């Protein structure tokens, strides 16, 4: 029972790491700016999940605040880049 739970948790961590890597590949090769920002957006969500996982791993609830603030800042960043691609405020 315990080993099954252990397996599920480590498997999800490795899956998340692989998905981070795949988004990173798209971030590097993406032909346009929008592709790169989409990849960055999904990388942010994945890293929020990693932060929550680490909060569980180290039993520190303070890391959840880090995840919240990181989500807020990344949302602002994506919207700002979108405005920039669009050609500024009108």
């Amino acid at each position, binding site marked *: *029972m315990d080993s*099954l*739970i252990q397996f*599920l*948790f480590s*498997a*999800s*961590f490795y*899956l*998340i790491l*692989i*998905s*981070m890597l*795949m*988004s990173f*590949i*798209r971030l590097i090769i993406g032909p*346009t*700016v*929008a*592709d790169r*920002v*989409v*990849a960055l*957006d*999904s990388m942010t*969500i*994945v890293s*929020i*999940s990693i932060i*929550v*996982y680490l*909060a*569980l791993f180290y039993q520190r*609830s303070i890391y*959840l*605040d880090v*995840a*919240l603030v990181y*989500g*807020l800042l990344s*949302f602002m960043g*994506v*919207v700002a*880049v*979108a*405005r920039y*691609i*669009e*050609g500024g405020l009108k």
Partner: protein
Amino acid sequence: MMELIGGIITFLGAIFLFLGSLGILRMPDVYNRMQAGTKATTLGSILFFMGICFMESQWIGKLVLLILFIIFTNPVSSHALARAAHKAGIKLADQSVMDELAAKKGEIDD
């Protein structure tokens, strides 16, 4: 028992996050990438946080806040990006069948 349920839900969430990133890597153009990216990462992270809720029941407040935040901001940011990409003139993939928005813009330009 609760830990086992939490582990299974977390694993499902991780699978969806993985598939979302795979979609971002495989899809042919930026709009389709956005479709895969937004939907799969939203449900993936929601399931992931729900699984963590089962493991640590006293964190439920902050995790619910995170889930609400992701549900509301993720579609907004992807909509902003899609709109910006279309305005910047990024073309749809070759197998696309129609583009009403470009037709509308053409009418205005004439």
